[in-house]
């Protein structure tokens, strides 16, 4: 089964603020921008809950003082969202034992990591596909070595 675990900051995200300010200066009119780390895992059903527990216990992934960890119901980007990953990165099926920060992930047969950007227009509405595309092309993705999924 596919399980997507999202880790975002509960404290102000300076990186997202810098990206938002830069995008506005470049003419991409967004009201807000949020960022999260995503771990998209193909995991055996029996190990899915244990996977979340392992990530919660991994302090380089999740610090309860500053992070929020949640399991996403969807395996794809939502409205106003774009996922960025590096081309050729991740651990595809058959690539051997998979781990995060040195911790083995039992039952996980494939792992992809993304940076998720959530873009908002005025009134906390998800940004339009055109705005997402403009932000992606202008700043969020370097297509020379990154891939954007929206």
């Amino acid at each position, binding site marked *: 089964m596919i399980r997507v675990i999202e880790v975002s900051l509960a404290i102000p995200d300076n990186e997202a603020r810098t990206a938002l300010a830069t995008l506005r200066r470049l003419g991409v009119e967004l009201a807000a921008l949020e960022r999260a780390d995503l771990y998209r895992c193909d995991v055996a059903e029996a190990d899915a809950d244990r996977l979340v527990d392992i990530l919660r216990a991994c302090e380089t992934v999740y610090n309860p003082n500053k992070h929020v960890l949640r399991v996403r119901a969807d395996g794809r980007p939502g409205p106003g969202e774009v996922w960025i990953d590096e081309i050729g990165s991740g651990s595809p099926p058959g690539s051997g034992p998979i781990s995060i920060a040195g911790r083995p992930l039992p039952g996980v047969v494939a792992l992809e990591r993304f940076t998720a950007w959530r873009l908002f227009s005025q009134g906390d509405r998800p940004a339009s596909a055109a705005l997402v595309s403009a932000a992606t092309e202008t700043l969020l993705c*370097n*297509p*020379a*070595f990154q891939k954007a999924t929206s």
Partner: protein
Amino acid sequence: MSARVAVLIFPGTNSEEETVRACHAAGLGAELVHWNADLDAVRAFDAYVLPGGFAYEDRVRAGAIAAHDRLMTAVREGAAAGKPVLGICNGAQILLESGLAPELDGRVRAQAGFARNAPLGKFRSTHVHVKLAVAPERCAITASLPGGTVLPCWASHAEGRLAADPTTIERLEREERVAFVYCDAAGNVTPAAVPNGSALGAAALTNARGNVLALMPHPERDAWTFMHHDASRDRARGDTAAMLSSSGGIALFAGLAAAVRR
């Protein structure tokens, strides 16, 4: 009056002092210029050096935010006017993110990037050598150097692997954008000399006109014998004059000086 070179500082730049010293040693009138400097004052410089560091904390991607900084307006205009522009390490990442190199088809937009090192994706700090891989006159900053010049440098980066789609990589080589490649101390270009899995073993890219050079490793960190990494440093111990004598990295700044005066 010596040529005036602006050594640009963004929040997070950390190699500006040694870069200025290397420029001074090469006879250039280098000055530190902060990101909030008056643009018209920045436009008055004869050349620009973007030093290493972590501009804007590498937020979004290494070099991505600085590439869109207002200070880069002056750099873009200067590059278009033919002024020499040298980016080192994070400065090289900024130049690729800004599209000032490699500038295929005359397009100033990101066509390549310095991605995470391969195979482990980790930061590396190691002494390296780079070899001039094009005819010296192909790039303004190398035009005064002998063909096949080998420079000693320190590689110090987590994102130094040249990456692009296969067609672009092939064009970078065919259209002479790869100015330096990694090599061993004797100048032999071998896979083992490449510290980061960089495509084509590339250490530096230039642009179409040849006045922009984006170099990943640091020549300013091997500019004097006390910074050098072979037996010459051991032989110089106890001899201050010998320790403060130039080592190979200074040659690139002499090349920059020659380019500015040309």
